């Protein structure tokens, strides 16, 4: 009985940590610009695909991972410069739609640059399952959980302890006021895209040994990450992590104790229920409007 429960828990933790890591990227861009970047899933895909193709070409794993992070960051910067920046005076909805267009473009480009097949990466610390009280967990899941924890700690430090991070938060609260006190709001937006692309690529690299990657793997990860971010409260890093873990655990426990056919439905019902009573999510700040 307990072994069974523990296995469901591990299963949920594995999926949940993946969703959480995917959700974190949404939080950063939202924080800096109130924009939901629907190309976030594509950053994850680019990280995974770049690393997988480099490893396949014989590059050592650590170098492939490092290069994948750099490539994704450059794509994030290019996206902001070429697509978002020219439209910066438009309203948020327009920019959100631009990011949807960008995601379609990036998927198309990935099809041409790579291919339509699935690719994998070797697990970072082997494929021997860790056994614990009758349940098993793959070491790679610990990498995913660890990366999420590390990312959330780094983000907390960045937003609360560095001037630039605070400038980013200030820009999201009031762009005009931030500009008036001398914050380079253009630079803030650029940095937020670079940062969230980096985070997406980290997610892509650590989850690829578990879920594999393909040109369209960003769709699912982006969607689940978005659900996680909304559930936890958009703009809250901690919220994205908690939201992701909840979605993952609910899915696993639902398939374990109820029926795997309804696991997605159950997860969505819980999300809807939470949002009904807490429209800004579990950890979201209440929206403030100027009157």
């Amino acid at each position, binding site marked *: 009985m307990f072994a069974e429960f523990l*296995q469901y828990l591990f*299963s949920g933790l594995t*999926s949940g940590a993946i969703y959480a890591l995917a959700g974190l990227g949404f939080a950063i861009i939202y924080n800096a610009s109130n924009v939901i970047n629907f190309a976030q899933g594509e950053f994850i895909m680019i990280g995974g695909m770049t690393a997988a193709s480099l490893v396949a070409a014989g590059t050592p794993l650590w170098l492939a991972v490092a290069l994948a992070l750099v490539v994704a960051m450059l794509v994030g910067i290019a996206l902001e410069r070429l697509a978002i920046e020219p439209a910066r005076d438009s309203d948020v909805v327009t920019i959100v739609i631009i990011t949807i267009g960008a995601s379609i473009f990036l998927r*198309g480009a990935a099809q041409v640059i790579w291919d*339509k097949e699935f690719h*994998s990466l070797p697990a970072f610390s082997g494929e021997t399952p860790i056994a614990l009280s009758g349940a098993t967990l793959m070491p790679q899941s610990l990498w995913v959980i660890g990366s999420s924890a590390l990312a959330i700690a780094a983000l907390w430090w960045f937003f609360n302890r560095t001037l630039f991070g605070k400038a980013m938060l200030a820009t999201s609260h009031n762009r005009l006021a931030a500009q008036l006190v001398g914050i380079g709001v253009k630079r803030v937006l650029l940095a937020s895209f670079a940062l969230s692309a980096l985070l997406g690529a980290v997610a892509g690299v650590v989850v690829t040994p578990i879920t594999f990657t393909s040109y369209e793997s960003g769709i699912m990860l982006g969607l689940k990450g978005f659900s996680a971010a909304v559930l936890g409260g958009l703009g809250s890093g901690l919220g994205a992590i908690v939201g992701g873990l909840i979605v993952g655990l609910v899915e*696993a426990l639902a*398939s*374990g104790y109820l029926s795997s056919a309804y696991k*997605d439905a159950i997860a969505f019902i819980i999300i809807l229920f939470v949002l009904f009573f807490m429209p800004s999510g579990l950890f979201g700040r209440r929206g403030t409007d100027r009157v």
Partner: protein
Amino acid sequence: MGGFVRWRAVILGVAWACAGIGGAIASEPIRIGSFLSVTGPASFLGEPEKKTLELYVERANREGGVLGRRIELIIYDDGGAGEKAATFAKRLADSDKVDVLIGGTTTGTTMAAVPMAERAKVPLISLAAGIPIIDPVKPWVFKVPHTDRMAAEKVILDMKKRGITRIALISEDAGFGKSGHDQSVAVARENGIEIVADEVYSAKDPDVTAQLTKIKNTQGVQAVFNFGSGQGPAIVTRNFRQLGMSVPLYQSHGVASKEYIRLAGDAAEGVRLPAAGLVVAAQLPATDPQKPVVTAFKAEYERAFKSDVSTFAGHPYDALQIVLAAINRAGGTDKAKLREEIEKTSGYIGTAGTVTMSPTDHMGLSPSAFHMVEIRKGDWVLLD
């Protein structure tokens, strides 16, 4: 968007033109129309299909075409959407005036185009697996791939041979997996095999250990059968080993490609699955009549595109060969005659198996078209 991209692959029979055969017999080209899911979720099927068609039409033209007429190939990309498939099929029949239709890639896109093909009386050869395409038989509609039911039969009979009577199913909850699941349930019932656990997962779930734990804890499971395509089955296989499950694991023909072995790695050792001759070309005995056909196709495809051949790439090859042979026998492209000749296809040895059609069977493959294979040391081992 991308859907309206149109490849008018006008592959002229250059050799034929250069040969200086005068304008006297410069007859109309044979027009083959095709609607495939080159982009979208089924692109992993549609893209190799398109490549194969182009490759072999070009080749046929180089060799002088059929009946001295060159072949014109018109391909549209339906992106996997049924309504687009129906529109393109209509356009192919009405404005492009094609003599025969090859497509669609999926059961959904095929079925969307079927009413049009029936109404316009244009022969349609589908590249999809679904049984509804040919059952009930529609006069103008044919298909080349195996059905999901044949794969399920192959697996269930192999289980029976090993004395297995209680099994667990784990399948993808939509499309290919769903259809395969339903067929497996029916075939198992007919063969007296009891399904004691029946779990599903979504195509992109990162982890299915929860479902497998449930199966593991179900009393008396003697084998597990996974029906799905894409990355799902590879994740199932890995999670299966992670949990240390030791009963036999069966997969469907949906993963009969080297990609599955590559993704699942060592976890794929000992997995059994039904595969078409094309996948196991190298392992077929020299006496197998399919051997020369699949070996030549595989070599040609891999030389031209530098990528591993999959079962799906073989379907348009079979469709094209059946059509060209029928045109040859019919002595032209009169649609009614062509339809009749396609139906009379007999003993054609293709990548899917030996095809003998009849007025009541518009697919013409027997269950022996599948081979049961086991994965050992990262390669296929033929079991029958």
